[in-house]
């Protein structure tokens, strides 16, 4: 497939504007004037349209295929929320309008959305207040850990360590390190959850807090949360809830009731907004009452006359963490989604997400190794160790699925499982689709025994075949047009 620049023919145009009869002004400061013509591809309109339509046909997305990418919650995103996010009253709003006195007349609707989704998220998580600023899950983690640090600074606590279980999300250690903490990794026990004995040994008065992904990356709910919370609170540490796997418990259980102090939600996962390919996401952070004063500025408030405005006067705030109020379009879509589903609908989300996962796990357990047997939550992790003995690795199974019309699951994560295949079907798939996926996985397990080479050759049905990831990573070839 050619790049659009490779299709360029010098001098070709899609349209030619009429000759201007107004003399060209030349009052732009020379140091700001470009010296060379911009290097743009030169094509006719129809060729541009065909180029990009062709690219869109190569897309592998939720709107075209089942996408059981573990840990990413690639649920179907309803088109109604897309439509509302496109309303010009929202989409064309200038982000600074909210800074007019008392929130300004034109931004009242948008401010109301931010105000009300804050209330909804409080209800869903059991937290006392939220900021909608963080632009992604990991950004929410950083915001949460900076809030944690602000709390300890305010109390003059001397804290240096942050505890992270080895079954946590990969971004947790990075967020803790960026916030300046020394990381203490705690291993999992034979049941796949944090090893309580090992945890007890690491907890001392230097511990600022603990980041828990629950359910964890094995899809397992931690049965010792109360004990872990008591242990951390005992040294005035704070409990951080990584909400990346909230889809497993939304509507059923609230981190605030379990004893967590800080929560981030991945709106783009649990609350159904498009993601993948780098964004945009939204990772709002909620905190309990004693941490509210440290949240980023501004906070949306309801004025006495019922109008909405922005409160910047928060002297203990950690400051601004992102421009304006976060990815407003994403927040708005989630707001619509939550209103559409309501309390009963959200409960059914987690029920069906968990049911679908356990159905897949039961149907496939005779064909793939299960590192941790028993019930799981919203995702299940298989190991391809049995197939590895036949020369077929997790990556070959992933590529074989593409040829069978499915997006691969997450592979080689979590790191605690060898040749991991991490499957998260979500609640939005029909039984027919899930059965077809199960059939494809069984077909691959059989092919691994009879014809492993055909899996090594996959994918063969795509525009490009198997990528050479090693050469791509070792020999970066990045061109910049001058």
């Amino acid at each position, binding site marked *: 497939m050619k790049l659009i620049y490779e299709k360029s023919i010098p001098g070709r145009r899609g349209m030619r504007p009429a000759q201007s009869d107004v003399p060209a002004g030349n009052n732009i400061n020379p140091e700001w004037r470009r010296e060379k013509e911009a290097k743009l591809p030169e094509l006719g309109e129809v060729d541009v349209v065909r180029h990009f339509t062709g690219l869109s046909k190569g897309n592998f997305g939720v709107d075209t295929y089942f996408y059981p990418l573990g840990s990413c919650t690639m649920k179907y995103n309803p088109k109604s929320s897309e439509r509302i996010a496109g309303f010009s009253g929202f989409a064309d709003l200038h982000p600074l309008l909210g800074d007019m006195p008392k929130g300004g007349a034109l931004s009242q609707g948008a401010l109301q959305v931010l105000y009300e989704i804050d209330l909804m998220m409080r209800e869903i998580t059991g937290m006392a207040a939220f900021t909608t600023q963080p632009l992604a899950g990991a950004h929410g983690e950083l915001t949460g850990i900076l809030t944690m640090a602000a709390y300890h600074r305010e109390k003059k606590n001397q804290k240096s360590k942050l505890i992270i279980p080895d079954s946590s999300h990969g971004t947790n250690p990075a967020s803790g390190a960026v916030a300046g903490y020394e990381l203490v990794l705690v291993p999992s026990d034979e049941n796949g959850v944090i090893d309580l004995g090992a945890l007890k040994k690491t907890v001392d008065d230097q511990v600022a807090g603990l980041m828990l992904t629950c359910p964890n990356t094995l899809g397992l709910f931690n049965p010792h949360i109360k004990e872990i919370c008591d242990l951390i609170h005992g040294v005035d540490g704070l409990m951080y809830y990584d909400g990346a796997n909230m889809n497993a418990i939304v509507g059923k259980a609230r981190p605030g009731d379990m004893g967590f102090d800080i929560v981030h939600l991945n709106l783009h996962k649990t609350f159904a907004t498009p993601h993948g390919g780098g964004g945009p996401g939204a990772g709002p952070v909620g905190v309990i009452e004693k941490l509210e004063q440290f949240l980023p500025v501004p906070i949306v408030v309801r004025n006495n006359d019922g109008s909405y405005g922005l409160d910047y006067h928060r002297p203990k705030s950690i400051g601004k963490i992102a421009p304006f109020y976060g990815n407003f379009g994403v927040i708005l879509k989630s707001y619509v989604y939550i209103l559409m589903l309501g309390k009963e609908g959200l409960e059914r989300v987690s029920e069906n997400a968990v049911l679908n996962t356990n159905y897949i796990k039961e149907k496939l357990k005779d064909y793939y190794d299960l590192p941790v047997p028993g019930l799981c939550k919203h995702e299940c992790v298989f190991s391809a160790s049995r197939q590895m003995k036949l020369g077929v690795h997790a*990556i070959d199974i992933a590529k074989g699925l593409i040829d069978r019309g499915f997006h691969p699951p997450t*592979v*080689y*994560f979590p*790191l605690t499982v*060898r040749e991991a295949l991490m499957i998260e079907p979500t609640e939005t798939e029909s039984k027919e689709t899930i059965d077809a996926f199960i059939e494809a996985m069984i077909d691959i397990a059989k092919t691994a025994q009879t014809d492993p080479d055909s899996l090594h050759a996959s994918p063969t049905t795509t525009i490009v075949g198997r990528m050479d*990831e*090693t050469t791509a*990573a*070792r020999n970066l070839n990045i061109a910049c047009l001058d």
Partner: protein
Amino acid sequence: MANEDLKYTESHEWARQEGDVVTVGLSDYAVEQLGDIVFLELPSVGDQVTKGAPFGAIESVKAAADIYAPVSGEVAEVNEALPDEPELFKTDCFGQAWLIKIKPSDPAQWDSLMDTAAYAEHVRGQ
């Protein structure tokens, strides 16, 4: 087997005693598990390393991992060429793909490492 003189860690580093330095590398098992290696970060000569603590990082197409020191001491030499030739892990992980040489601060730590037979047993249990 030519690697009889090697000792190993549970985290799959090998160590070889040569005069007053200990050479460190990654075992064939570790290399096989990681897959094709694409990035390597090593310490500098003169850095202090601590037994059981990470001294470097390695990244493959599958995963990123820390590399742990088998013994404590000062880094005496670093395989500067290796980050540019990661394919050496595949062809000669016990030879040309050595990582660093450590001047041990506590020679007794050598005895706490696994010998070849114990390591083979450890790998079987993985």
